[in-house]
């Protein structure tokens, strides 16, 4: 029992001793042992160091009673205890010494950066007594501007994932960090001079510190080599730049300056890490208000339908191989000197597009897609130069990557060397190459020939299984690091919580190997101190400021001037049989997020598929192949097809996707995992097993054979709603019509609310002079990215229910994004106009759900909220039946406890308990739930305002969905305040009410969708 005054134990020793005690323990057992440990003096002192946020783990385990009970108790309480009866006697445990700036019950926010595919997105993390519970965007960060996306939101779940690898293991046997470092140092020492045979494999590295550490390794072992492979990175852009300018420069687009945008198969609204910023900038030019005179126009050429194409004013679905030809034709049209092989326009609209782009010199931009060959990128660069875009809508900057190399080449080289037994020690820092490497490289068996292979990763995945050593990697919320955003801006990644398990960051591992094992904080801090111009005193201030702001000023990538882009010779179009297209999954990307239940269940933006990927193809193609009938072409059937490509075969369920390019099949990567957690293992089919290194993005020569197998895919849109069933859930106009009509109201009689109601609302409510909450959703800038869905899930403790339950129509999302197609003709079927419509609870003033509740569990508040009281609900489901919007969700089982079949990502698991928002009740079995307009945030703001004797300011309350929205499509506020943004939007002629004719008087209203088609290409009439 060490006494208070022995002070010569440094914090690290303490950590080390604890870690040693915990070494080799897993999962729940580990938790218990921590609980036992929590009281021990060294641990006590250890958690009371200068960073209060780091004491969180201990509090979570012992201190924070109230918040904890909110979670543990509520399920019991909701299991039918009315009032305060029969609650178990419980302990209330204070601190021994309270951390300085921590007020129990009051959340604290810390700035840090989320790491997505190696790039940073600035975030603010809400922490309750040291438990990170919610991620918000950092308004000061260029890649975020206060918003985030589904991926960033979901990284919170990753942190608490109980299936993360929790320790060091050798050949699957539990080991210790010490054992690893000992063996590693021995191995390194045993290498021939210069570290011959030492290899490091990483993904994209933008972290200055990590880059420095790696180069230090390379300095120490000159013969060692560093390889990089990031499957979902923008390889072609790099190659394209090299082709066009002879050096790897990076293009950054400024869509807020662009009046005309042409994407060549580019999903700039959906592709991380720049999607959040691009979406915001794009939306800025697209909002249409009364009197608006301009609106940007988006042309999209794409093969796999994506949210970018869905937003386009003109969209053409083409085989990926045909797009270069289009690019050349348009390039020619806007005056790029093409030399001899100028391609002739193959489509009537090409010239119109070219003219339109050219007409907006300096205000138009062409964006090449990640999936397009370098040539297309080079062409795009050339077009942008010709359009005078460079400097306005496009900037060329130094690459943000520490060392921009051709990843695929780098990987191939590594594999070759491994086969030739030239690799003695391989250090894989992050990533899962065994799974993500193209099939033809057969990475796994090459790796098997490496005597000393180490894998540092968050999961015990395919690579971990193949390597000699597996090291648990820390989540970015538990380890110090730094990272650069897509535009180069650097941020310090500061942890909010002690590592939940015995894990370490890449920094700590490298430092350990370099024989100088210091904690991550010091590694990162030292690196920046070294680079800091000025005295240490000022550094400390700067450092504190960086941590506080979440960005390091002046670190954005430097602009570079580029010569005129060389236009490469056309690549011959090979089109035998069908094309196969490999695309990162919209939610799982390359598989990095595969074990994240939130993202697994989250319906894909267009297919609305959950828990599976599929072979996507166009209706016409399915009909031609006899896989579907013309009448039912758009209804998902359970066919399984066998895909044969370059001698490899893969069976995949078929999903018919309107708008998919003809004669090609899309497979989303990231699925069909064999290891790496129960959430991802065995879900979907592995597209990598068809991918080859010579054509990683798409290739021709695919054969498709129907099989007798059937497989049930689950899509949350039971109805693919190809037309709107004679209904008008979404109203839209063309921008031109709207202007010419003099901004006439969009909603006709049929859609608008009757002025009369049968009953008089009690004056106490009708004439209430306090706040009146309302919401407005601008469909014109909603890109259907799902960020709001996940944000809501994180904020409101919404459980995951699993594929089986989703297939029964029991998903729990409080806000859903409806996807509608317009048009019924076959042409429409091949390329429909797509609409997205987020639907939360409408908070009707004359709510149909309320009068039918027998126990008054759902009633109206004076502020106009449709209150749902879980603890009063008996679960008759009558309210849901009577809700015309079907936004109510019911706990058919105790979903919060993972029932019926241990659905992951729920709230009674010890780790997930830490994640839950203590201000929102965790719902038990048999109760109804629904969107509350984030009433916990409203109440918090109201209390704060009252204490300061003021009224709540406009914008002070942000609902979770509003806060996360990259395009700021959602506005919330007090509609009694005429000056409030939401009130202004409700005055817009574009305002309409969903199912207004039912006279439910919703507080949530919409702004109509506008489309801005090019009159030269064929004028469309909007739905009348």
């Amino acid at each position, binding site marked *: 029992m060490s006494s208070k005054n022995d002070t010569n134990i440094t914090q690290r020793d303490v950590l080390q001793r604890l870690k040693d005690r915990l070494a080799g323990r897993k999962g729940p057992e580990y938790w218990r042992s921590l609980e036992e440990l929590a009281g021990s003096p060294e641990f006590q002192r250890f958690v009371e160091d200068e960073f209060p946020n780091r004491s969180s783990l201990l509090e979570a385990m012992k201190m924070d009673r109230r918040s904890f009970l909110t979670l543990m108790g509520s399920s019991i309480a909701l299991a039918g205890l009315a009032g*305060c009866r*029969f609650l178990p006697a419980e302990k*209330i*445990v204070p601190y021994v010494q309270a951390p300085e700036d921590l007020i129990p019950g*009051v959340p604290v926010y810390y700035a840090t950066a989320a790491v997505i595919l190696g790039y940073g997105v600035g975030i603010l993390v809400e922490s309750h007594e040291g438990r990170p519970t919610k991620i918000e965007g950092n308004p000061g960060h260029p890649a975020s501007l206060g918003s985030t996306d589904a991926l960033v939101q979901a990284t919170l779940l990753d942190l608490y994932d109980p299936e993360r690898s929790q320790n060091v293991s050798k050949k699957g046997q539990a080991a210790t960090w010490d054992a690893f470092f000992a063996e590693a140092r021995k191995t390194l020492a045993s290498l021939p001079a210069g570290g011959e045979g030492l290899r490091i494999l990483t993904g994209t590295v933008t972290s200055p510190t990590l880059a420095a550490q790696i180069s230090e390794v390379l300095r120490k072992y000159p013969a060692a080599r560093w390889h990089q492979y990031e499957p979902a990175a923008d390889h072609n852009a790099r190659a394209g730049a090299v082709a066009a300018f002879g050096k790897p420069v990076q293009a950054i687009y400024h869509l807020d300056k662009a009046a005309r945008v042409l994407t060549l198969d580019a999903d700039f609204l959906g592709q991380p890490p720049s999607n959040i910023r691009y979406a915001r900038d794009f939306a800025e030019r697209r909002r249409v208000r009364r009197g608006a005179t301009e609106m940007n126009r988006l042309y999209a050429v794409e093969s796999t339908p994506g949210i970018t194409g869905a937003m386009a004013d003109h969209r053409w679905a083409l085989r990926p191989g045909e797009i270069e030809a289009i690019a050349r034709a348009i390039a020619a049209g806007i005056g790029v000197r093409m030399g001899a092989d100028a391609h002739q326009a193959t489509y009537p609209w090409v010239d119109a597009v070219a003219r339109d782009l050219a007409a907006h010199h300096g205000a138009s931009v062409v964006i090449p897609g990640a999936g397009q060959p370098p040539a297309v990128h080079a062409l795009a660069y050339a077009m942008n130069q010709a359009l005078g875009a460079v400097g306005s809508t496009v900037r060329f900057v130094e690459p943000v990557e520490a060392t921009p190399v051709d990843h695929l080449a780098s990987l191939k080289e590594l594999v070759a060397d491994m086969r030739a037994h030239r690799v003695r020690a391989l250090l894989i820092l992050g990533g899962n190459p065994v799974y993500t490497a193209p099939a033809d490289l057969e990475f796994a068996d090459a790796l098997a020939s490496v005597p000393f292979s180490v894998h540092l990763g968050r999961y015990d995945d395919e690579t971990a299984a193949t390597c000699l050593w597996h090291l648990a990697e820390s989540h970015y919320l538990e380890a110090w690091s730094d990272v650069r955003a897509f535009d180069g801006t650097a941020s310090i990644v500061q942890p909010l919580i002690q590592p939940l398990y015995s894990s370490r960051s890449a920094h700590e591992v490298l430092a350990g190997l370099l024989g100088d094992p210091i904690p991550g904080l010091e590694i990162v801090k030292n690196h920046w101190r070294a680079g800091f111009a000025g005295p240490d005193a000022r550094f400390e201030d700067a450092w504190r400021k960086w941590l506080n702001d979440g960005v390091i000023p002046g670190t954005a990538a430097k602009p570079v001037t580029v010569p005129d882009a060389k236009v490469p010779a056309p690549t011959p179009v090979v089109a035998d049989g069908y094309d196969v297209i490999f695309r990162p999954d919209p939610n799982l990307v390359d598989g990095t997020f595969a074990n994240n239940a939130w993202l697994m269940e989250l319906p894909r933006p267009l297919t609305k598929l959950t828990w599976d990927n599929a072979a996507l193809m166009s209706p016409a193609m399915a009909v031609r192949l006899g896989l579907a009938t013309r009448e039912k072409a758009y209804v998902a059937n359970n066919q399984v097809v066998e895909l044969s490509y370059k001698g490899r075969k893969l069976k995949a369920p078929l999903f018919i996707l309107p708008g998919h390019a003809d004669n090609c099949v899309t497979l989303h990567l990231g699925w069909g995992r064999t290891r790496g957690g129960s959430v991802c293992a065995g879900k979907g089919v592995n597209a990598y097993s068809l991918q080859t290194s010579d054509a990683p993005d798409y290739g021709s020569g695919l054969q498709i054979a129907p099989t007798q197998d059937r497989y049930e895919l689950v899509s949350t849109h039971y109805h693919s709603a190809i037309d709107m069933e004679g209904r008008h859930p979404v109203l839209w106009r063309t921008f031109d019509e709207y202007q010419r009509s003099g901004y006439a109201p969009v909603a006709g009689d049929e859609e608008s609310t009757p002025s009369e109601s049968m009953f008089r609302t009690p004056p106490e409510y009708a004439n209430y002079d306090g706040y009146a909450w309302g919401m407005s959703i601008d469909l014109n800038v909603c890109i259907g990215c799902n960020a709001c869905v996940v944000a809501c899930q994180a904020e409101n403790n919404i459980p995951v229910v699993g594929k089986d339950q989703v297939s029964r129509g029991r998903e729990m999302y409080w806000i859903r994004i409806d996807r509608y197609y317009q048009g019924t003709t076959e042409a429409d079927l091949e390329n429909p106009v797509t609409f997205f419509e987020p639907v939360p609870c409408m908070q009707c003033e004359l709510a149909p759900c309320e009068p039918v509740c027998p126990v008054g569990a759902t009633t109206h*508040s004076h502020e106009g909220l449709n209150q749902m009281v879980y603890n009063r609900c008996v679960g008759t489901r009558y309210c849901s039946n009577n809700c015309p919007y079907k936004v109510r969700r019911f706990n058919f089982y105790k979903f919060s406890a993972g029932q019926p079949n241990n659905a992951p990502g729920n709230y009674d698991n010890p780790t997930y308990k830490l994640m839950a928002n203590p201000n929102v009740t965790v719902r038990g079995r048999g109760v109804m739930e629904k969107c509350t307009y984030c009433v916990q945030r409203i*109440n918090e703001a109201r209390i704060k305002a009252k204490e300061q004797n003021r009224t709540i300011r406009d914008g002070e309350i942000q609902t979770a969905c509003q806060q996360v929205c990259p395009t700021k499509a959602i506005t919330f506020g007090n509609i009694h305040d005429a000056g409030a943004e939401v009130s202004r939007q409700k005055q817009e002629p574009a305002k309409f009410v969903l199912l207004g004719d039912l006279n439910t008087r919703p507080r949530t209203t919409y702004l109509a969708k506008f489309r801005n088609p090019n009159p030269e290409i064929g004028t469309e009439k909007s739905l009348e």
Partner: protein
Amino acid sequence: MAQVFPRSANTLARVSLFCVVAGPLAILLTGSAITRSGFNTKVDVPLDQPVPFSHEHHVNELGIDCRYCHTSVTKSSFAGIPPTYTCMSCHSQIWTNSPLLKPVRDSLATGEPLQWVRVNKLPDFVYFDHSIHINRGINCNVCHGPVHRMQLTYKGKPFFMSFCVNCHRNPEGYLRPREDVFNLYVKYQRGDISAEDRRMLDDPDYVPSPAQVAKGKQLVKEYGIKKAQLTDCWICHR
């Protein structure tokens, strides 16, 4: 045929018939009585604590302010339980080796926190915020009973919903000027406290006088309390 039943059967029959009707009624009434009784609510039942802490001694005799220990009561939903250090800030000087305080000293020595038994507990679907109630001049005793008189701490009021709703419907009787919230204990100690306030502090079944209600109405205006809203479900349940 002969008599099947003796004469007594007549009375028996009538009595049993009566019981059939009255019996269930009686059971229901007993049930509800038990629900409301201390047996269920644990009101007035001191719980066994590691240290026999006396609020009366510290508050009333020594006049220590509530906020000295319950630091976050004005800032947070959670009133806060004093860390060991707070106790020791005095008890490192006085009663330094009183056997009663051994657990406290041990806690400091070992770093093992004190484990108090929770006295006032709300169900987890009820979201009560101390700071706003204090801010609106609601004295601790309104909900916690005569704390300043408790030698051992016990639950002062049954936290039934009807109890909360009663005050949320007519707050006037319980509102006080902000500065008085903690001041009242000082006044009480000095003895220059109004009879009304004294009753409020001492009497668990305190019923506000008309005069107080009138004053309260003033405060409602001053604080801009929207009375109607106070009984909306989502004020307490989320």
